[in-house]
């Protein structure tokens, strides 16, 4: 069976839309204008205005001269596309395959029309509904997108072109009905081509030489010799499964079984689409009208019912069935494509296959104690200790630089440096002894100072530079202490920041 297409042309899309919003504009000539090269150009005119001979592309001043009481309104950029998108979503009831055109819609209606009885009833129903909604629409049906488009805009007789009439219908149409550039149209008129029929008899090579490849493509697309792919819009079907019960359920085992059934239903679809679940919400509708809600999240998209069930199983104790649950629904709010290939996570030999197990483990832990409490760190290009590591965003993030930062770093780092009392012989010397938590530590060995300054783009007043010393006391305990600020200013203060192994 050949394909059938419908082209819809919204003749006054923007003005019709505005008239619907502001009914007082219905009997007023008005235009929508937008500035272009320092002039206001008419972008859309309603049918009243058009009857005065005003068309799009005219200067607004000229239009005002023709119609003195013309209302001039500002056009909203991008509005037409927005309206068309909504119209396309609405048209889904007529066909599942809909594409958006510059000023209309294209519907692939193959196999749809019999639901309305016949093609005639189908088109009549479609156009009538749109017209009663308040849009001035013309539509046509044909075997190719090109011809449907042409007939909708330039057709003079009937809107439905059968397969037998295909060529006959195309021949008397003007060249601009072929969806070609205005320059080519002008050229065609200059050369005396006033209908498509005059062009058909000519040789391909001659046409290509004079009018270019794109013209030839459009001609053959209209004739049906060349396929024309369309970009269809797809309304996203929500991932939603439901499971009603004859008798309200109350026990944990039955709830687990129910969740398993729901997950199997959900994963069947996810599997067939190659997708995996990242976040799901389970809602239980209780007999007493209350609603229980359980949310799970995963680190990696998953469509494995067993794994997802484990995540839910951790939360089953929190589901309160009270008098019983009548209905469970499961929605997947976040769905991502499943990675099929194994990734080399740790860049070390023999580590393949561990990613899935690790991700599964972190899912379980994260769902119990919160995913925000799980961290992994990567080195960051900063000497300032607090900024020398950054949290990794995903399990597969790899460090962009080496961990080696030159000087050794302490094994334990205090979150906030603690003030210590220090005795140092000279301003720039490491301390002789320091007192921390009431205990005196006498320093036996010390490394040279390491001066760390905050980056210049960080707030300068709040972070003075620090002189870090690695010191060892008489017991052998190794500490990381620093002096903040310049000695000359008299505002120096010593802090303990970490412990070395």
């Amino acid at each position, binding site marked *: 069976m050949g394909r059938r297409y419908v082209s819809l042309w919204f003749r006054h899309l923007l003005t019709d839309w505005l008239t619907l919003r502001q009914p007082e504009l219905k009997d007023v000539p008005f235009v929508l204008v937008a500035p272009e090269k320092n002039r206001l150009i008419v972008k859309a005119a309603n049918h009243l205005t058009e009857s005065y001979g005003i068309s799009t592309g005219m200067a607004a001043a000229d239009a005002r001269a023709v119609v003195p009481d013309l209302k001039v309104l500002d056009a909203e950029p991008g509005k037409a596309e927005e309206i068309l998108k909504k119209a396309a979503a609405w048209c889904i009831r007529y066909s599942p395959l809909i594409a958006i055109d510059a000023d209309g819609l294209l519907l692939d209606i193959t196999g749809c029309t019999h639901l309305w009885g016949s093609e005639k009833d189908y088109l009549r129903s479609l156009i009538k509904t749109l017209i009663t909604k308040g849009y001035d629409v013309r539509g046509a049906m044909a075997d190719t997108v090109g011809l449907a488009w042409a007939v909708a805009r330039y057709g003079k007789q009937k809107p439905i072109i059968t397969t037998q009439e295909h060529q006959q219908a195309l021949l008397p149409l003007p060249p601009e009905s072929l969806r070609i550039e205005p320059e080519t149209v002008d050229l065609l008129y200059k050369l005396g081509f006033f209908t498509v029929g005059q062009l058909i008899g000519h040789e391909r090579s001659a046409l290509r030489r004079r009018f270019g490849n794109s013209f030839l493509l459009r001609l053959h697309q209209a004739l049906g010799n060349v396929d024309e792919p369309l970009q269809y819009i797809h309304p996203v079907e929500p991932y939603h499964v439901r499971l009603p019960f004859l008798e309200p359920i109350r026990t944990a085992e039955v709830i687990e079984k129910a969740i398993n059934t729901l997950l199997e239903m959900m994963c069947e679809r996810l599997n067939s689409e190659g997708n995996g679940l990242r976040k799901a919400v389970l809602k239980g509708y209780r007999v007493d009208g209350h609603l229980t809600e359980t949310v799970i999240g995963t680190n990696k998209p998953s469509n494995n019912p067993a794994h997802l069930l484990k995540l839910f199983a951790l939360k089953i104790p929190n589901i309160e069935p009270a008098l019983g649950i009548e209905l469970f629904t499961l929605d997947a709010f976040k769905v991502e494509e499943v990675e099929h290939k194994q990734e080399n996570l740790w860049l070390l030999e023999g580590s393949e296959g561990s990613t899935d197990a690790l991700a599964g483990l972190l899912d379980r832990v994260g769902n*119990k104690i919160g995913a925000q409490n*799980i961290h992994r760190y990567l*080195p960051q290009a900063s000497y300032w200790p607090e900024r020398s590591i950054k949290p990794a965003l995903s399990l597969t993030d790899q460090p962009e630089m080496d961990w080696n930062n030159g000087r050794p*770093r*302490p*094994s334990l780092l205090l979150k906030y440096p603690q003030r210590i009392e220090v005795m140092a012989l000279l301003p720039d010397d490491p301390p002789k002894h320091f007192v921390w938590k009431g205990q005196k530590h006498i320093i*036996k060995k010390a490394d040279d100072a390491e001066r760390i300054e905050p980056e210049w783009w960080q707030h300068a007043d709040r972070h003075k530079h620090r002189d870090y010393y690695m010191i060892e006391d008489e*017991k052998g305990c190794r500490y990381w202490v620093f002096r903040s600020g310049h000695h000359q200013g008299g505002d120096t203060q010593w802090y303990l920041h970490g412990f070395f192994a």
Partner: protein
Amino acid sequence: MTEARQNIIERLQKDILGWQGFVSPAVGEQKGIGLGPVETAFPNGVFPTGNIHEMLCGQQEQAAATSGLMMGILSVLMKNGGACIWISTGRKFFPASAHQFGVAAHRLVFVDTQRERDTLWAMEEALKCESIAAVVAEVNDLSFAQSRRLQLVVEASKVTGFVMRSNLQKLSTTTCVARWQVTPLPSQTEGDLPGVGFPCWQVQLLRVRNGLPGTWQLSWSDQGFTWGTEQEPQIEYTDVQLQVG
């Protein structure tokens, strides 16, 4: 007669060790974990992986030394791939320090819990995951029942676990394979050279299941663990002139 008896006893001892989770090394697989003399304390002279080790660290200084030793062990355990999970409440461990002990810090996954109960739960979950190299948990206390739960898990999964205990007031018996205590020792510098040398620790094995407890001195250099040739802990300190600045 006595020789035959000796043989039987040896075989029985080996069997018992096997049932207790110690794996005797296969022939030609005698590679240690780099701990040198410390490994002789364990049955068969092999550091028991796939077991729970208990590390006592009452003070922060000890905790720092313990994490240094653990990182050295982890660098060997993580050679065959796999991540290490570090579970704690109030974590102080600084990932940038792992590099000097030969551990890539981005392979450490930190789990920060609010309660100790969650720490133990997370540790049990993590120990079940066979592709993980090791699990470290910082807790205050570990009861006998809790340690037995962990032991049962690792017997199935063969993951090595380290429990860092900070409360040393009431040390109860646990099923852990070894109880360690690591205290920092003054680092060794050559001659009168100023500065701080390689980290140096006194490693004590307070109790070892079927092994011999003891005390050793270890230090960590660029080549890995190094141990002195039978030297007593230095008690006398010679003042070192600090020439810095």
